């Protein structure tokens, strides 16, 4: 019985396979060789940062012959400059410069989360956030690591306070963590001289509320506005943010009272 069924099923499968193989010989469509070359060059991570579903689709979009339909060559963020040059070599098109290099920064610096409720349920930020998160701060990091799981490059790890830490070198700026964060804490920023200065807080509550809820949140004291060069920081709604980080400044010298100005840099 077993042998009979194996034989019969095998025979049917082999027959179907042979027919398909013959049909393939007759009906095969040659892929555009340019697309294949491009796919070889692209990282093959299918991260979606370029706006296409897969590296293959992006390659197909770049190989369009009509220039107005062709995708831009510098959309691959994980690849960087090197790949853009290789792509432009293959296509014989002038490259439009380096892909815009950005890195993810985590705009929350909470060390001790004050609870407003006890949360029991699936341990991921998205579910938690649906019912308010059980945390006193409505803006801060929930600490379940959705972003770390979303990252394809292991660039995000959780530190001892369950706060995501971005590894500068590994981060490709693809933005998967940005989409995964229900509280929109993670933003993409362009580094200057291999470092990004950012304010590790998103809370726009009044200074008093922020201070009672969290000892590490920005209270909008404007000390950064005064001590840093003109136009570098701006404070709105009791929350500081970095407007322009070109100015020379020693972050330590600002002495931010809640210590929420952070720097993301290489090998940090």
């Amino acid at each position: 019985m077993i042998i009979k069924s194996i034989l019969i099923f095998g025979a049917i499968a082999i027959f179907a396979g042979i027919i398909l193989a013959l049909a393939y010989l007759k009906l095969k469509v040659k892929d555009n060789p340019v697309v294949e070359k491009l796919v070889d060059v692209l990282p093959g991570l299918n991260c979606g940062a370029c706006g296409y579903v897969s590296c293959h689709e992006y390659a197909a979009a770049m190989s369009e012959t009509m220039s107005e339909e062709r995708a831009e060559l510098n959309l691959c963020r994980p690849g960087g400059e090197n790949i853009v040059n290789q792509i432009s070599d293959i296509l014989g098109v002038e490259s439009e410069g380096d892909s815009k290099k950005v890195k993810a920064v985590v705009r929350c610096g909470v060390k001790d989360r004050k609870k407003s409720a006890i949360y029991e349920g699936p341990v991921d930020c998205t579910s938690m956030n649906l019912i308010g998160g059980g945390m006193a701060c409505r803006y801060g990091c929930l600490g379940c690591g959705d972003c770390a799981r979303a990252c394809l490059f292991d660039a995000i790890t959780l530190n001892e306070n369950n706060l995501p830490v971005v590894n500068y070198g590994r981060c490709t700026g693809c933005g998967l963590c940005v989409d995964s964060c229900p509280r929109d804490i993670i933003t993409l920023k362009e580094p200057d001289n291999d470092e990004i200065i950012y304010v590790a807080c998103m809370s726009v509550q009044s200074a008093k509320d922020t201070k009672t809820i969290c000892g590490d949140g920005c209270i909008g004291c404007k000390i950064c506005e005064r001590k840093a060069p003109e136009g570098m920081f701006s404070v709105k709604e009791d929350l500081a943010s970095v407007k322009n980080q070109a100015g020379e400044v020693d972050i330590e010298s600002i002495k931010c009272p809640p210590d929420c100005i952070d720097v993301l840099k290489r090998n940090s």
Partner: protein
Amino acid sequence: MSLAAIFLSAVLVNNFVLYYFLGICPFLGVSSKIDSALGIGMATTFVMTMTVFVTWPLYYYIISPETGFNLPFLEYVVFILVIASLVQFVEMFIRKFFSHLYKALGIYLPLITTNCAILGMALFMVLREYSYIESMVFGFSAGVGFTMVITIMAGIREDMKYAPIPKIFKGAPVTLITAGLLALAFMGFSGILSP
């Protein structure tokens, strides 16, 4: 049962999508444009008819307990094998000769393999003990029914783009509601012909 009755039964009265709720995936996935809806409908019809063409002899000469080698447990796996191979074939064919349709259908073309309407159709064929000719008509009309419903759905969805739908219903919810109302409309046929 006459061939005409089988045809009308499979197209209108016991429609695969709206009566048995089989093949919902492409029904919701590819019904945003009439062109691609017609394309997937025709591809499904072709695969259904070809499936019957191949599976009927396979069932009655190999699998069947009475006339074959008595291997009824192979039924599902053989049917799936046949359907998967046929879909591969159809995919190659469409890619070669209708490359625009190939692009429009995208992932839904290989997904015909897992379209339960096709496997369901093959199983109904065995269950209802149709003859070879009856099965062919049944397979073809099941495909026609699928094509008709998915095209109607695509037409509704194309017009729905201009309707003032409340924000929370936009997208999938209103599509599911429409599918339900369409099924409700088709309930009017029920009982006219037994399956």
